[in-house]
């Protein structure tokens, strides 16, 4: 490719191939070499004036966010530098109109952060047990990996453990949901439970992370050094912080009940009467009967349909979209760029298709639009995504 100075000035970045080709072009064309020299000279000079006249990027951030954040949000050092900057910023902006644009841009950055935060918080606040979706790409994420590893938890389902018996001296709390209903329970420690129909949750006295479950429920237990106990018909589940579904299947003709534990996140160890412990990884289901425990990988979305949650774990977006289309009987057009992008998240079906797609769009950096006439949803790359 032959390069003109206009081509070069218009480039945002230079690949190694660009540099080699431009160098060759400059060797062959002295006027191009001079033009590039001029351009670099101007660039450097403007940069030097920026370094000389602009406050540091951190001070700019403080100045831009001074209305939004309060004094207590800054360290004393940050606050002092902000007060100092306020006295000179007017002059700096008068000399460099670009500063006003940058300040405005930082304020927009804050709005974007707000949206990302709210999209995530909406999904984990009390009343719901959604989890924020994560479009995964973990290379270089050592710290987060450590964090996830430390958050791994152990669930023990054991037959034959002494069941927690109601204490007649303490008040007995019961939350029940009849057929046709289902609801969320937010417990005092912040853990959330979604009870399936004909299920109930109870505990004695002051809440102390010990509950009895009759029926089925999806748990999202806040991690804590204090274990969380779920008593079921056939045993006790001990949890330190994870999300999983416990489904109790009524006793068969021989009087043997079955418990299915489906793990979404965390780590689970199952032990039953007379059988060796087995470890569940996310995406696996343990089926526990009196004769033993079997563990197998499952499709989380299908296995947890009874919870009325949409559960995805590193699921390619094309499959996510197919499930949403099936579940909500809608049409979704997915930008081919996202077809194989893996998505992890748990969504309450009650939120509706539009809200769920909005959260996904935020996680993907995509734009969601709806065709007013056909009702078709579109997830497209946002304008800034191709930078």
């Amino acid at each position, binding site marked *: 490719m032959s390069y003109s100075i206009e081509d070069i000035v*218009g480039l945002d970045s230079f690949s190694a191939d660009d540099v080699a080709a431009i*160098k060759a072009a400059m060797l062959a064309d002295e006027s191009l070499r001079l033009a590039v020299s001029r351009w670099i000279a101007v660039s450097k000079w403007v940069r030097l004036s920026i370094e000389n006249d602009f406050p540091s990027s951190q001070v700019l951030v403080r100045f831009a966010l001074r209305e939004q954040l309060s004094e207590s949000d800054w360290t004393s050092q940050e606050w002092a530098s902000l007060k100092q900057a306020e006295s000179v910023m007017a002059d700096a902006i008068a000399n460099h109109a670009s500063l006003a644009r940058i300040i405005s841009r930082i304020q927009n950055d804050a709005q974007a952060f707000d949206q990302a935060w709210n999209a995530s918080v909406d999904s984990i606040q009390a009343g719901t047990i959604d989890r924020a979706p994560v479009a995964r790409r973990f*290379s270089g994420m050592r710290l987060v990996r450590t964090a996830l590893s430390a958050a791994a938890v152990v669930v023990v389902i054991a037959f034959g453990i002494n069941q927690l018996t109601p204490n007649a001296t303490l008040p007995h709390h019961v939350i029940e949901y009849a057929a046709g209903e289902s609801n969320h329970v937010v417990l005092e420690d912040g853990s959330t439970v979604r009870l399936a129909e004909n299920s109930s949750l109870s505990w004695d006295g002051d809440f102390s992370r010990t509950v009895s479950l009759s029926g089925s429920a999806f748990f999202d237990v806040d991690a804590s050094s204090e274990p969380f106990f779920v008593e079921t018909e056939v045993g006790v589940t001990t949890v330190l912080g994870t999300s999983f579904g416990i489904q109790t299947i009524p006793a068969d003709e021989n009087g043997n009940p079955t418990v299915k534990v489906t793990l979404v996140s965390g780590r689970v160890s199952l032990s039953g009467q007379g059988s060796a412990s087995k470890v569940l990884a996310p995406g696996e289901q343990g089926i526990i009967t009196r004769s033993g425990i079997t563990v197998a990988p499952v499709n989380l979305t299908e296995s947890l349909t009874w919870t009325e949650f949409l559960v995805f774990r590193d699921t390619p977006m094309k499959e996510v979209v197919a499930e949403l289309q099936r579940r909500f009987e809608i049409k979704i057009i997915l930008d081919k760029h996202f077809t194989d992008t893996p998505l992890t998240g748990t969504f309450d079906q009650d939120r509706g298709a539009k809200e769920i797609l909005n959260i996904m769009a935020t996680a993907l950096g995509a734009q969601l639009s709806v065709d007013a006439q056909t009702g078709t949803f579109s997830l497209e790359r946002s304008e800034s995504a191709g930078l």
Partner: protein
Amino acid sequence: MQSLVPHIEKAKKGDQAALSIILTKLEPVLRAFFISRIGRRPDVDDLVQNTLLRVHRGLSDLKDDTRLKAFAMKGAIYELQDFYRGRYKPKETLFDSDETPEIHSLDASAEEQMDVEYALSSLSPHAREIIELREYGYKYEEIADMVGSTEAAIKMQVKRAFERMKDALMAFLLWIAIPATFSR
């Protein structure tokens, strides 16, 4: 994320499990934020990582545990601004170090500064603003978004600005090619 408040208190006292919970909850928020600002790029991983490290290292400075959002936002935007400011370097590889035009730095003589200032003064305030934003570290597409224009229109303005500066720059470039001891 109100439920994180008890974890913040524990994390400040060195509880690693509590810290891990906080970081794990923050990670998807930060990822979504950075993707919304710079697109889906490998740099997002580094920005998320650096912000989590900021949160980790600075958690003891958090005065009000209910203000984690403001604390994380501040760290994320610091990182984003540092990212923009570190974007320039590549075009200087167009010249090998020994052939890069010698530009005197801030201690340059008043006369030299006037040459460039004169060249820049030939520009409209809008064109100068665009060049400053470009040199600050924003990409043309981002600048277009900031000033309410299109990327193509912004590039055209920069090219025209450069044309306008040519004559004024000629004298300056002759000077920088001459040994510093040579008196004009």
